């Protein structure tokens, strides 16, 4: 009896400025097979369906449990994590593409450093002027702690940026993930002192005003962060900040 195979159609690219091309690979099926595990099989034996031995497919992965965000790619047209994309649950043949919202380095490996730059831009950190023992430290607001916890799950995987029609080479929008991080740090008992700085950063070109309300971000977020709700909250905060900028000076 012939073994069951899973067909992968992979969009490859040899370098940042090279032309993309596709190659097809067959991987032996096994229960619970996911896309990362299949890519590992291809890496062990990089032979296409035509029997040609090729360079192994390059991709990025790390935690293998949907926490680190590294293995985000476009699987059957959908931006998602490869490690939790179970072969049993998706349509075959399986199409893999790099998330082209970001610059492609090679094959499925992309350069997501733009998100780190955006986090620096919105001041995605808390300034500390000292340290405390636990009992003396400022406490989290218990009413917003759940929200802060939820937003802190963001792993800058970039799914929301890939799905957002307003993010890409044609636009300067920093995207939903870095924007919403501003709200997380504005909720922090010490971070809130820098809230005006973050809100002003969001008012700049490519900030929250570039959001077009397509709401794809909240649909694709693998961590189920209510991105559109926090974008609306930030819109509110930014409008108030604008009034303060106008009337407090």
């Amino acid at each position, binding site marked *: 009896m012939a073994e069951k195979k899973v067909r992968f159609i992979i969009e490859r690219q040899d370098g940042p400025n090279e032309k993309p091309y596709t190659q097809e690979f067959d991987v032996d099926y096994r229960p619970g097979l996911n896309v990362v595990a299949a890519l590992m099989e291809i890496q062990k034996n990089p032979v296409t369906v035509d029997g040609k031995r090729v360079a192994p497919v390059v991709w990025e992965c790390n935690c293998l449990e949907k926490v680190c965000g590294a293995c985000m790619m476009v699987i059957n*047209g*959908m931006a998602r994590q490869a490690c939790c994309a179970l072969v049993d649950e998706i349509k075959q043949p399986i199409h893999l593409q790099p998330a082209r919202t970001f610059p492609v380095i090679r094959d499925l490996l992309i350069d997501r450093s733009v998100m780190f730059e955006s986090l620096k831009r919105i001041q995605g950190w808390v300034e500390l002027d000292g340290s405390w023992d636990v009992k003396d430290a400022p406490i989290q607001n218990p009413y917003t702690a759940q929200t802060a916890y939820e937003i802190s799950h963001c792993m800058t995987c970039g799914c929301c940026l890939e*799905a957002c*029609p*307003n993010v*890409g080479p*044609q*636009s*300067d*929008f920093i995207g939903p993930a870095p924007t919403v991080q501003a709200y997380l740090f504005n909720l922090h008992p010490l971070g809130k002192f820098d809230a005006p700085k973050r809100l*002003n950063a969001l*008012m*700049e*070109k*490519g*900030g929250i*005003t*570039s*959001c*077009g*309300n*397509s*709401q*794809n971000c909240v*649909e*694709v977020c693998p961590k189920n962060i*209510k991105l*559109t*709700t926090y*974008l*609306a*909250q*930030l*819109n*509110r*905060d*930014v*409008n108030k900040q*604008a009034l303060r*900028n106008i009337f407090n000076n």
Partner: protein
Amino acid sequence: MFNATFYLRRLHSLCGLLVLGMVLFEHIFTNSMAIFGPQALNGALAMMELIPKPIFLGLEVGGIAIPLLFHGIYGIYIALQAKNNPGRFGYVRNWNFTLQRWTAWYLVVFLIWHVGYLRLYTKGVTGTPISYELLQNYFQSPIVVLLYVLGMFAAIFHFCNGITTFCMTWGITKGPRAQTVVSYLSMCLCALLCLITLTFMGSYLI
């Protein structure tokens, strides 16, 4: 600090919903008089002629031309920043996002034709007053009727979907329930206004 982008975007939003929304409502209201026959429409048009010429021209320039040009030109800039992807992500809101841009492109062309021919050429250059008879004659061509109905549908959808996104942009509706309710209500308004449009456009055919 002065964030020009922020104020331009918010002005674009306000200008579209409040000013151009008013223009759309005025058009639908006046034109719907055609439902009650030629006298009713001509009467409504005569009422507008009662406004002194300089004030009327001021309203047309300040209340229509400038906001429309700003909203249109800045809107083209915004539309060019989007790479519509409803084929890959076929969610309702993403379709609305795409339709908002497609209707915008149609309206750019349609409004150049509509304003250029009826306001600037017919009323401005030849000095012919707009009347029921003129419009009825104009709407003898089925292609003109089709393009006008499409133009009205595009403007109405663009306005009604604009209500939904306006509420998000200004942080009025925050949670998904509030956003969905407003989106349903604005789509009901969209259907109603489209129906009124079909009725008054149809009245020229009878």
